[in-house]
């Protein structure tokens, strides 16, 4: 009986937590580093376009950030076939995955700029 009650409470609190955070998302952009470095995803940009969490989670992406990059098929070819970002970035819903490369691929320079708070560390003279 006691065990059952605990389970119910746990389930309820989990639900409440889920509701409370329904529209919360990580503010900081996520920067993938595999298979290539410096690929940005911004929750903010996508939420401001009016997308909701469940449009991507967990159908295309798990909640855990950068989990997808552990998959072997997390490559551009998969996107062209409609997987991952390619589900929307197909030229119809959003710009096609094989265009505007440097929009998401901010590169090692972009990655370092994010780390340094907006400043590019000049490598060359």
């Amino acid at each position: 009986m006691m065990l059952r009650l605990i389970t119910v409470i746990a389930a309820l609190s989990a639900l409440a937590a889920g509701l409370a955070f329904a529209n919360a998302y990580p503010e900081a952009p996520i920067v993938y580093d595999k298979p290539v470095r410096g690929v940005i995803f911004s929750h903010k940009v996508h939420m401001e376009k009016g997308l909701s969490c469940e449009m991507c989670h967990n159908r295309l992406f798990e909640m855990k950030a950068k989990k997808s990059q552990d998959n072997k098929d997390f490559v551009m070819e998969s996107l062209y076939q409609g997987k991952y970002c390619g589900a929307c970035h197909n030229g119809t819903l959003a710009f096609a995955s094989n265009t505007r490369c440097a929009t998401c691929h901010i590169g090692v320079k972009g990655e370092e700029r994010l780390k340094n708070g907006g400043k590019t560390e000049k490598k060359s003279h």
Partner: protein
Amino acid sequence: MNNMDFNKLQNEGVENVPMQERRDFLKMGLAITGIFAGGTLLSAVSTFNKANAAEFAKKYPYSPHYSMVMHQDRCIDCERCMEACVATNHVPNVHGAYRTTILEKETPDAVGGKREFIPVLCNQCNLPQCTRVCPTKATYKDKTNGIVMMDIKKCIGCLTCQEGCPYNARYFNEHKKAVDKCNFCIDTRISKGEKDTACAHACPAGVRIFGDLSKQDSDVFKTVHQIEKAVWVLRPEAGTRPNVFYTKG
């Protein structure tokens, strides 16, 4: 001056025109094409729509004539090329030391994509400034393949070549105690039978295409000589006839 026959004047070449003067002319939309009569006369042409690669690619004096074509819009600054170059050619990990690097250009007002990455390396120019200004002939054009080489035993580290290079493609290597630069991996890969440079080999996006411009069936020749897509070189006004070409798509 009164009886000067302009048709008989010899072009003395643009190599000695100071960079500042060329820039001043470029700001007026003119590229200096020649100096005559000991520098008292200049010839210039409009720079409008002049970024045409064909004039740089008329003749290929070397065989093989090594060249690289950059598909610029494919570059994502993953910097695998730079890592591969460092590992292959033992480039020291110090500030400002590189044989190849990637420049970034942002255009915030652009429609669509707003960022471009531009990979750069030695352009292995047909008329290099660096070899011209080197006081000890430590840097020279290879007579067979046209690669701009370094003889580090002759280099005195005066860095005049760095000043002369319009592409910022040279650095002083503290280990070698000499200037170091890209040589298209001639010693580390090409002479060992590899078909491409370390940077081209490492690129996951097919940005860098390495090949022989003197062969008409090579990818570099086909890209440079087609007219459907624009092909250009960096800093054409320097007049050095570079062998690194840029295109998109």
